[in-house]
């Protein structure tokens, strides 16, 4: 065997070893939960609380955008529970019989957020029409951006945003750092940003709040365990975890 061949063999051996170790991580006791990326922090807490009440269950969380999760489930990814950030995407899954009996797990309202020192002197939604301010929204193609535009339309405010952030997290970061004067974000974001942001409430009659539907995946291996997890999320304990992060209880919007 030549030097090069030995080298080639070594490379292939190393690669197959890596592949092997990745492939062997699946676990019979594991419940696979696909959740919207905007739920990242609260999912950790939900899972921690759930494993406290039901020891021995191992919950694996896969975080991605709702549309991506939908595509993954259509392509046969191993999911037991799916928790999305909007109703429309869940409806598409229902239409294809990919999930069973969706329920609303929580809702999220939107607020106008400004930096703690409010450099632009923002008082209400009307200020978003001011051209001297730097305004940020979520991109219209993600839920928080779509809802924000519905709010502005309903309020009759013509806002010209200076940036359409691809996700609400980066929008919040730019308001916190003072690079933007104002933006429309979720209530939950203010809960995590603490006193770095000033919250200006938005009239709830202007829009439909964002809801988080949860459902059992039809092709999942563990429908019973999946339902147990959903029951936990809807229980008093699960709802209190969600409320601590700024979510509204599901029943308030149901």
């Amino acid at each position, binding site marked *: 065997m*030549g030097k*090069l*061949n030995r*080298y*080639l063999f070594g*490379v292939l051996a190393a690669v197959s070893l890596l592949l092997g170790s990745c492939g062997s991580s699946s676990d019979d006791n594991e419940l696979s939960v696909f959740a919207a990326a905007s739920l990242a922090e609260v999912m950790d807490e939900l899972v921690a609380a759930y494993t406290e009440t039901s020891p021995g269950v191992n919950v694996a969380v896969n975080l991605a*955008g709702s*549309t*991506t999760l939908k*595509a993954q489930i259509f392509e046969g990814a191993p999911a037991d529970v799916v928790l999305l950030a909007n109703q429309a995407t869940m409806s598409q899954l229902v239409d294809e019989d990919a999930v069973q009996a969706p329920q609303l797990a929580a809702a999220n309202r939107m607020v106008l957020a400004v930096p703690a020192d409010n450099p632009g002197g923002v008082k209400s939604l009307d200020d978003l029409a001011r051209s001297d301010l*730097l305004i*940020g929204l979520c*991109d219209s*193609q*993600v839920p928080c951006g779509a809802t924000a535009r519905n709010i502005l339309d309903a309020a009759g405010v013509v806002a010209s*945003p*200076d*940036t*359409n*952030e*691809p996700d609400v997290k*980066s929008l919040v970061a*730019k308001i916190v*750092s*003072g*690079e*933007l004067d104002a933006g429309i974000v979720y209530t939950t974001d203010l809960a995590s940003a603490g006193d770095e942001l000033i919250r200006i409430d938005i009239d709830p009659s202007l829009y439909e709040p964002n809801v988080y539907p949860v459902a059992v995946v039809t092709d999942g291996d563990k429908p019973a365990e999946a339902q147990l997890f959903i029951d936990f999320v809807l229980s008093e304990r699960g709802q209190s975890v969600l409320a601590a992060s700024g979510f509204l209880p599901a029943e308030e919007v149901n």
Partner: protein
Amino acid sequence: MAELGGPKGPAPKGLIALAVLGAAVILLPIVGLLARTPWSRLGELLGKPIVGDALRLSLITSFAAAGISLCLGLPLAWILSRTRFWGRSLLRAFVTLPMVLPPVVGGAALLFALGRRGVVGEPIYDLTGFALPFSVWGVILANTFVAMPFLVLTIEAALNNTDHRQEAAAATLGASRLAVFNRVTVPMIRPSILAGLVLAWARALGEFGATITFAGNLSGRTQTLPLAVFVSLEADRDAAIAISLILVVISVAVLLILRNRWWSTQ
């Protein structure tokens, strides 16, 4: 003049196997992209105003960033290669930092420095009312930040490999150091300057993380092609693929033209 050929005979099979594997790693994703491209809807997808705006902005900002990288990076490379001063190795390490730094971190760092509340940005804003973030200048700056190291590294390597005697000869003929730089050094390393320029341009064209973090995302002002791909990916996968296809086509076209023009002589 007759060229001296290398050793003749068939290429070793092991080398071929690894080369094929290497090419596959690069080409397979492109094949995947082409396979998923909605060819019948392509015209309609590319006709969207968001695409035209992003394309125009991408071209302007990537070429501007490459140009600025050249104007600033060439002297920087020269200083690193031709002068000796305390902290030179440290400066060289920092100059290459944007190559390893996650671009998002780079964008955040740019905000801390040049944002409206940044260390340097705040006094500028207070004085002039001008802020870099959320402007096309912000995009160009973010692009320059990530692209310039490629140019500096390429040119510095070329400078370190040049024959110093031509520069010495120019000096004995009465040329000042600046004249030597302009009339001898730069022409001598022209191929490497072009290579560095192309690398920097390509990096700027594909820039995403630093741009979206520092300059935000607004169609027509700061939304470049990679940003357009990213925001479309969630809602309209077909549009995202179509825009990616433009990026591939532009990059390949420019690289092919430049390669044929300047590097095909070997």
